[in-house]
C-alpha cells in the first residue's frame, strides 16, 4: 500500500504531469502527420527524457505513443494516408466513411475504441506483469537465454513476410550489438582502435538514425508531394454510444488480441491492427460491407492497436525483452536511468512499477479529451507542410544524437544507422528484428556463455529446468516450421497429380 502512495506522489507532481501533457500534445501532432511514426515520436523524445527524472521520462514516452497511435487514424480517415503504420489496416474503411459524409462517426468511433482498447491493454499489464514477475524471480541464465531466443525468433517469423530477410536483419542487429568491450570476456571487438567504440554503439543515436533519419531520407528522395485539402469536422460524439454498444464484442475481441500480439516480441500495434481487421471481417455477420465504409471494420482494429501498447510492456518490464520497437527504446532509456527492467524491479522499486501503471491509465483517459481536440484541429495540423517539418526534424535529430555524450560521434552513429535503416526498409528488410538484435544481443551472449560455464559445457543442461525446456522446445519448433511447411507442400504436390489421374 505504501508503494502505491509513493507511486501516486511520483506521478501527481507538477513536473511529471507537465511532461505527460506536453508529450501528449507532441504525440498527437507527430501521429497525425503522415510519414512520422509513433516510434519516431518516441525516438525524438528520448534526448529530452535524458534530462528528466525516471518517472516523468517514462510518463512522457507512454503518453506520447498512446496519443500518436490514435492520431494516426486522423489523416487516415480524412486523407486516406495513415498517420502511422498502425492505422494502415483500416485506412480504406475509414476513408470510405468520410466519402459517405461520415468522417465524424469514423473518427469518433476510432477515438472511443482506442481509449477502451488502451484501458483493457493496461488492465492486462497490471494484472499479468506482477504475477509473471513472481515466476521470473526464479529464472536463471538458462530461462533468460531461451526467452531472448524466443523474442528474437518471434520477431523474425511473426512480424515479417520473408523470414530470410528477417533473419538477415536480426543478424545485422546482433553484429551491431557485439561491437565494444561489453561481452563476457571483456575483449574489445570491432573497435579498430577507436576509443569511442569501446563502449559499444550508443543506443539512442542508433534509434534516432533508424527511425527518424531514414524517414527524412525517404522524404528527400520522394521530393514534394501536393497536399490535399481537408474538410472541417463537426459534431463528433453523436451516435457513438450506439456503435460502441452494438460492437462491444468486437472491441473486447480486438483489445484482447491486441494485448496478446503486443506482448509477443517484435510484433506491435501495426500487426495487431492488421490481424484484428482480418478477424473482424471473418467473424462479422455482414462481411460484404467491409471495405465499403462500414463502422464495424474500425472497431476491432482501433482497439487492437492501442491495447497492443500495454501488452508490449509486459515482457519489457518483467524480462527486459521488448514487445515492440517502442518498448525497445524504452528499455534503453530505463537502463540509462538505472531502472534496469526485470523481476527485481517489482521487488526493489515497486513504486516505480505502480507509477508506470498509473501513468498508463492516466494517458489513456487523457486521450479522450485531447484526442477530441486533435480531431477538431485536424484541419490546421494537416496544413503544416512536411517540407518545412523534415529539415527541422533533422536538426533536432542531430542535436539529440549529440547530446547523449556531447560528441559528434553520436551524430556519426545516427548517420550510419540512418543509411542502413533506409536501405533496409527500401528493400523489404524489416527493421524490428534488427532493433531487437541490438537490444538483446548482449543478453543473448551473456546468458549463453554463463549457462555453458555453469553446466561445464553440457548443452543438455539448456533443457533440464522445466520452464527453460518448455521455452526451448517452443523456440525450436518455430525455427522448424518453415521446414515442415516446405515438406508438407512438396508432399501435397506429389499427391495432387495422383488424385487427378
Amino acid at each position: 500500500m505504501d508503494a502505491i502512495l509513493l507511486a501516486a506522489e511520483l506521478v501527481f507532481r507538477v513536473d511529471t504531469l507537465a511532461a505527460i501533457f506536453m508529450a501528449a500534445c507532441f504525440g498527437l501532432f507527430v501521429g497525425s502527420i503522415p510519414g512520422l511514426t509513433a516510434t519516431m515520436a518516441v525516438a525524438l523524445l528520448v534526448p529530452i527524457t535524458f534530462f528528466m527524472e525516471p518517472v516523468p521520462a517514462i510518463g512522457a514516452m507512454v503518453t506520447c505513443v498512446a496519443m500518436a497511435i490514435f492520431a494516426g487514424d486522423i489523416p487516415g480517415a480524412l486523407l486516406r494516408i495513415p498517420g502511422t503504420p498502425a492505422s494502415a489496416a483500416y485506412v480504406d474503411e475509414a476513408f470510405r466513411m468520410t466519402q459517405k459524409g461520415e468522417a465524424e462517426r469514423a473518427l469518433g468511433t476510432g477515438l472511443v475504441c482506442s481509449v477502451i482498447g488502451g484501458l483493457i491493454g493496461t488492465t492486462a499489464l497490471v494484472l499479468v506483469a506482477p504475477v509473471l514477475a513472481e515466476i521470473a524471480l526464479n529464472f536463471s541464465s538458462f530461462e533468460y537465454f531461451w526467452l531472448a531466443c524466443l523474442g528474437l525468433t518471434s520477431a523474425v517469423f511473426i512480424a515479417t513476410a520473408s523470414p530470410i530477410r528477417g533473419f538477415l536483419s536480426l543478424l545485422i542487429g546482433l553484429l551491431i550489438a557485439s561491437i565494444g568491450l561489453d561481452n563476457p570476456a571483456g575483449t574489445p571487438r570491432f573497435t579498430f582502435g577507436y576509443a569511442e567504440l569501446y563502449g559499444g554503439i550508443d543506443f539512442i543515436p542508433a534509434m534516432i538514425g533508424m527511425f527518424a533519419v531514414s524517414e527524412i531520407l525517404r522524404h528527400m528522395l520522394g521530393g514534394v508531394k501536393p497536399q490535399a485539402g481537408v474538410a472541417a469536422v463537426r459534431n463528433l460524439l453523436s451516435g457513438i454510444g450506439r456503435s460502441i454498444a452494438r460492437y462491444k464484442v468486437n472491441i473486447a475481441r480486438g483489445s484482447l488480441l491486441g494485448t496478446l500480439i503486443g506482448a509477443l516480441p517484435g510484433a506491435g500495434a501495426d500487426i495487431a491492427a492488421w490481424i484484428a481487421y482480418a478477424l473482424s471481417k471473418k467473424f462479422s455477420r455482414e462481411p460484404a460491407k467491409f471495405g465499403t465504409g462500414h463502422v464495424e471494420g474500425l472497431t476491432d482494429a482501433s482497439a487492437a492497436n492501442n491495447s497492443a501498447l500495454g501488452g508490449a510492456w509486459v515482457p519489457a518490464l518483467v524480462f527486459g525483452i521488448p514487445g515492440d520497437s517502442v518498448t525497445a527504446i524504452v528499455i534503453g532509456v530505463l537502463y540509462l536511468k538505472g531502472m534496469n527492467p526485470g523481476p527485481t524491479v517489482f521487488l526493489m522499486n515497486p513504486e516505480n512499477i505502480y507509477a508506470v501503471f498509473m501513468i498508463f491509465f492516466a494517458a489513456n483517459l487523457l486521450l479522450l479529451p485531447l484526442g477530441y481536440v486533435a480531431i477538431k484541429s485536424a484541419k490546421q495540423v494537416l496544413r503544416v507542410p512536411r517540407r518545412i517539418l523534415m529539415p527541422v526534424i533533422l536538426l533536432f535529430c542531430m542535436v539529440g544524437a549529440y547530446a547523449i555524450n556531447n560528441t559528434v560521434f553520436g551524430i556519426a552513429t545516427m548517420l550510419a544507422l540512418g543509411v542502413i535503416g533506409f536501405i533496409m526498409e527500401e528493400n523489404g528488410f524489416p527493421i524490428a528484428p534488427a532493433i531487437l538484435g541490438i537490444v538483446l544481443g548482449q543478453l543473448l551472449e551473456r546468458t549463453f556463455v554463463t549457462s555453458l560455464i555453469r553446466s561445464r559445457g553440457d548443452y543438455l543442461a539448456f533443457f533440464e529446468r522445466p520452464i527453460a525446456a518448455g521455452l526451448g522446445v517452443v523456440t525450436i519448433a518455430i525455427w522448424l516450421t518453415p521446414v515442415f511447411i516446405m515438406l508438407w507442400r512438396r508432399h501435397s504436390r506429389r499427391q495432387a497429380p495422383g488424385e487427378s489421374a
Partner: protein
Amino acid sequence: MKINDAILGAVLIFLGFAVLLYARTLPDMPGQDIGPNVFPTVIAIGLIVFSIPLVVTGLRKWPTTGAVQFADWAQSGRGRLNVLITLALIVLYIVFGESVGFIPFGIVIVGALLLLQGVGPIPSVAVAVVVTLAVHYAFYSLLRVPLPWGLLMPIAW
C-alpha cells in the same frame, strides 16, 4: 530505391567473411570453451548462409529489374541528388561542426534542405534562422547541452 537482391546478398556475404576473418584474430579465453570469437563467428556464418538464397533470387530477377530500381515517385534525378546533399551536409557537420559552430551550420543545413525542396529563398532563410535559434535555446540554454559556438565564439551568450 530497390537494389537488386544479388548485390545486397553479395555485400552481406562479403561482410560475413570479413567478420569471420576478424573473429579469428580475437584471443581465446584460457580454460574456457566459449571465447569472444564464438558469437561473431556464428553471426558471420548466419550472414553468409542466409544471403545465398538472396543472391540466387536476385540473379534470376536481374534481366527484368537491373541493378537498381526506383519507385515511380522517385524517378527524378532531383530526389537522388537531394538525398546525397542531405547526407553530405551531415558528414560536413561531423567534420567541421565544432569549428564552424552549431548556429551557423544549423542555419545552413535547414536552409539548404528547404531550398532543395523548392521553398522560396526568403522563407527558407527565415525559417532556418528561427528554427536554429529555437533549437539552440532549448538545448543549450534550457537543457545545458554544450553545443559548439565555433565562429560565433566572440559573441557567445
